[in-house]
């Protein structure tokens, strides 16, 4: 499912082609190419040290690539790129004793037509902390301030690097919600991450990066389906039934019984036909579970490596 705004002419917001960058004799970025389209959340996913950050730093103009080209918004010059691109970097980037509102106010003054800082603070949930020192904020609050700084210039594109690293699960989900709202406003987002769950939840398309190369580029669903691993549905039937009612379904490739539980394997969207066939036979499936391949499995299949350390 590609969640794209309908009836909009899709414009290439970022075009990266054959990007290369070497550090101390190592090709950190080794021929990376991808394009990011307007209005999408584009994920750059890969293990630590894969070259993700270096790649987006080249896009943001923080680093000069050894070779290859980066075009932002149709090929803007460096000054124009800085005006239209909001960047959220990995490490802390503010003095400890600056207050939340001061930081936002200062950054707003850098842009010709900044966002309303009060509304922005409200949106990232920091209104109550506007007078707090940056150094006194929790990790999640610092991240949200950092997102606010990336958005205060009303950018057309926002690059967010390791957005939720170090956040607790609740803060992480809040941050994801915020990102979805920002995209709903029409900001194109490039999300650098090594979190599978984050990529699966947020991204329209993903570039899987490993050892400085793009190993695959697709939607999360497309990447998972690419490895062709079967889906499994497990349940405990309310009473015995004839396997034939399930085997007759085109999606089903196998049915197994084990300790009173049934495991149905198959392809495609397995759950709805299985449940309706059981219901038609008067069987109620209890403890219903569905097992699907994840992006982790896809990454493993494509590179032979686990993505999460």
């Amino acid at each position, binding site marked *: 499912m590609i969640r794209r705004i309908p009836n909009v002419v899709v414009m290439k917001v970022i075009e990266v082609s054959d990007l290369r960058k070497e550090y101390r004799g190592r090709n950190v970025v080794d021929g990376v190419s991808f394009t990011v389209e307007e209005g999408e959340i584009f994920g750059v996913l890969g293990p630590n040290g894969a070259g993700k950050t270096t790649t987006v730093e080249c896009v*943001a*103009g923080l680093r000069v690539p050894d070779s290859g080209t980066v075009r932002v918004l149709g090929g803007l010059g460096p000054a124009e790129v800085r005006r239209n691109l909001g960047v959220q970097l990995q490490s802390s980037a503010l003095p400890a004793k600056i207050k939340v509102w001061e930081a936002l106010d200062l950054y707003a003054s850098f842009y010709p037509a900044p966002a309303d800082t009060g509304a922005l603070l409200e949106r990232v949930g920091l209104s109550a902390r506007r007078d707090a020192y940056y150094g006194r904020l929790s990790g999640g609050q610092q991240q949200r301030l950092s997102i606010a700084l990336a958005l205060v210039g009303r950018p057309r594109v926002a690059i967010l690097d390791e957005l939720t690293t170090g956040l607790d699960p609740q803060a992480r989900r809040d941050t994801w919600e915020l990102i979805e709202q920002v995209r709903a406003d029409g900001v194109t987002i490039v999300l650098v991450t090594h979190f599978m769950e984050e990529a699966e939840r947020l991204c329209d398309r993903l570039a899987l990066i490993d050892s400085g190369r793009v190993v695959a580029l697709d939607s999360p669903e497309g990447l998972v389906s690419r490895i062709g691993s079967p889906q499994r549905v497990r349940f405990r039937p309310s009473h015995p039934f004839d396997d034939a009612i399930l085997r007759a379904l085109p999606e089903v490739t196998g049915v197994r019984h084990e300790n009173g539980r049934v495991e149905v394997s198959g392809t495609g969207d397995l759950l709805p036909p299985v449940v309706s066939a059981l219901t038609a036979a008067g069987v109620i499936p209890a403890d219903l579970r569905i097992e699907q391949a994840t992006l982790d499995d896809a990454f493993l299949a494509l590179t032979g490596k686990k993505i999460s350390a």
Partner: protein
Amino acid sequence: MNKMIITEARLFLRDPAGPIFAVLLPLALLLGLGSIPGFGEPDPALGGQRVIDTQLPGMMVILSVVTMALTALPATLVAYRENGVLRRMSTTPVSPVRLLVAQVVNNLAVAVVATVLLIVLGHLFLGVAVPRNLLAFTGVFALGTASVLGLGLLVAAVAPSSKVASGIGSLLMFPLLFVAGMWIPRELMPDLIRRIGDFLPLAPFGQAIRDTWAGHAPQPLHLAVMAVTVLATGALAARLFRWE
């Protein structure tokens, strides 16, 4: 730019140890040492001047400038680099150069406040004359302060961490203050040391401050050394400074 200076000034005052040190220590030394009876008598070794005429207040002006420019400024700037403040700013339409300018302005402001207090309080409590050649004094102060700030920026440019920056700052500060006559007046120094001092950044600054305080013209050599220091440190710092 104004917002940047105001923000940096706020940050500066929230962590006031550095500025307070740079203002209060020289002031306390001036008033404390200045009330030692012997320092108020004409001293043949100083050509008949009293210690409190130009030696003591002149050195205190230098001390306050050096404290800001060689310890406070580089430590702050290198910490900004370490914490990614400069790098973050370089992704915005505004260059981090402005942050450097704001820092320099703030440090300069503290040195000016300290110097004005030294002159006014020294005059009120010790009867130290106000600099007789005030215009030349102001010019020397501006040039000398610029040369020490340039040195501080150079330290910030080459120091890999804020600890190293403070280390280099102090390491430069003490010998330079020594040849400038902080502990022994230059009049009492061996010729060789005084001659070496003439070509180092701080002694010309101190001597020119004392000369103009007494109403004399500063020596052309001293003005030249300060000017060269400004140009050389400025150019080097601009070349070597890294945002990350």
